């Protein structure tokens, strides 16, 4: 989908000089409108939020202005950067470990059907267990160090990656395999040169979903007594009495960083190695 937008904008750029000055206003897909739509929606949402708080006379639920002031307060104390770094650190490691283990595991299980028979029920049993349920186990195994939240983030993201890799191999087109067999590739070459490449587009989609999940569980993972991170910020703000502005500030920061992470992972889909695998609408 994103590639479709890129193509349209490229056309706009090419035809722009020919058109008259206010063309960007008329053309529904001009850069102007593509910015106005999400910004307008956000403005509408924030206005409704502010009005809803005012009309309900709630003095616990913060207004957007309170939240922005809360974020500035965190910045002034130097906490915002620290917490963002801590959360990104844990998610980066948990997620990287999940990719390093999940992708090869998925490829192997997708290829060898007997191994799949053995492991699939195991994976399906573990997959639906929420990371919150793992918190006691994480504390017992890792204490209250950074390793515990990393373990929880790993657990949450490894299954979507593995499952998407398994599905990718199982749904691979036979023509690639036949061609590979004709060339007489060894097993190692087959995995690296054919299976991995053929499955990459689907694996990238799985990775994108898993990154979303990894970032999603950061609050749960930081419920353990670590003393930094955006999830910790939310839990700490609940301890601090009437600081729901900071709770929402934590939510806003998690959301914004999630958006940036998704935009970055989407860039992966633009590489030639995977682009062939996505249909263009």
């Amino acid at each position, binding site marked *: 989908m994103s590639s479709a937008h890129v193509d349209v904008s490229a056309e706009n750029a090419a035809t722009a000089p020919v058109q008259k000055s206010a063309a960007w206003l008329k053309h529904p897909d001009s850069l102007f409108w593509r910015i106005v739509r999400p910004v307008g929606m956000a403005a509408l949402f924030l206005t409704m939020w502010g009005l809803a708080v005012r009309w309900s006379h709630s003095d616990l639920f913060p207004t957007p202005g309170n939240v922005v002031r809360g974020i500035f307060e965190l910045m002034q104390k130097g906490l915002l950067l620290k917490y963002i770094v801590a959360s990104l650190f844990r998610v980066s490691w948990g997620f990287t470990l999940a990719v390093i283990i999940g992708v090869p595991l998925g490829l192997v299980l997708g290829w060898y059907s007997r191994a799949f028979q053995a492991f699939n029920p195991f994976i399906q049993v573990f997959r639906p267990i929420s990371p919150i349920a793992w918190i006691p186990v994480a504390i017992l195994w890792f204490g*209250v160090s*950074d390793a515990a939240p990393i373990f929880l983030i790993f657990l949450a993201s490894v299954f979507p990656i593995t499952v998407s890799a398994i599905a990718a191999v199982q749904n691979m087109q036979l023509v690639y395999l036949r061609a590979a067999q004709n060339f007489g590739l060894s097993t190692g070459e087959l995995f690296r040169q054919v299976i991995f490449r053929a499955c990459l587009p689907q694996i990238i989609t799985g990775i994108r979903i898993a990154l979303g999940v990894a970032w999603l569980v950061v609050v749960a993972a930081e419920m353990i*007594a670590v003393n930094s991170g955006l999830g910790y910020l939310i839990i700490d703000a609940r301890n601090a*009495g009437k600081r729901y502005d900071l709770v929402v500030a934590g939510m806003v920061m998690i959301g914004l960083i999630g958006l940036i992470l998704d935009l970055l992972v989407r860039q992966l889909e633009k590489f030639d*190695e995977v682009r062939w695998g996505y249909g263009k609408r």
Partner: protein
Amino acid sequence: MRKILIIIAVAWLVFITLIHAALNLHVFHSKQAAGGTDKRFRIGFLPVTCHLTCPVTDFINKQMTGESIFEPVRFNGWPELKEAYLSGYTPATFILAPMAIALREQGVPIKIVYLGHRDGSAVMVHKDSHIYRMEDLRGKRIAVPNRFSNQRLLVFRALKQAGMSVNDIELLEMPPPDMPAALYAKAVDAISSGEPFMGQTELDGYGRVLWLTKDVWPNFISCVLAVHEEMIKTKRDTVQRLVDGIAKSGKWIDQSMAHRMETAQFVSKFYYNQNPRLLTFVLSKPPDRVKYTNLTLRKPDFAEIEQLGREAGILNGTAHFEDYTDASFVTDETAVQPYAWEPNEQRAR
């Protein structure tokens, strides 16, 4: 292409690890960077007044000698605090008295060595509600922190005094930090937990005290200092220093109102991350809302807790005072002297 991606990924991991180490782990300017094993043991605590002596001991020791005798680790809820103790991460911890007794019944090597406080709890109702006596709570919802919390036993005891039973009310478990908002939204009719969460509802103008613990159960105990049995055997002098420190800080807090106000300031700022107004309020209005003297272990106090715990169905009575306590560290509290430390001028502001 793949190579570039891997290089970017590795560079990112190294980059984020280094700034995390610098900003949050303070690896680059600290003595404890190299392992930092054991010398200082960890103590678990929650940001409630029941555990106040923990940060006070830490702070005063740092001020007086530049070094604390332990490393306080702040948790956000009872389950995590308990699990950290069970895993051995925190060999000593502040914990609910009935929870410590129940753990002992389940075979956990835990010994209560000192009390955390006396009183310091309340039952709050919404100021607009028509609840003025325990009897008015019939059919209402009351939130308590945990099934092992003494607040639950407190409610049991108050019900008994009012000639009611637990079947007349609806009890539900809720983390204390969420209680003020729940009362504000009238999601529950009454809340009970350790301070400062009760005082907060009063300070913010929507909570009313139904009763303070001192009115219903004078000298109420909710949290105690407990240590691992192994630690008492192998490092008795360390435990002694710890208990002495906690006892001295308790006396120090109760020595004068100025000390209480100073405590509210530094604990809010450096340990609890709360608005100092909150602790200032609960430590002074009234001054005997929570007390930190008279903290030696006495058998009759625990007999009462055991009795109520059995009635409430959380204890089965297999562990006895002698099993789950070691009262030998402070036998005569009158001999304990408060810390000889006075906040200097700059800090007092």
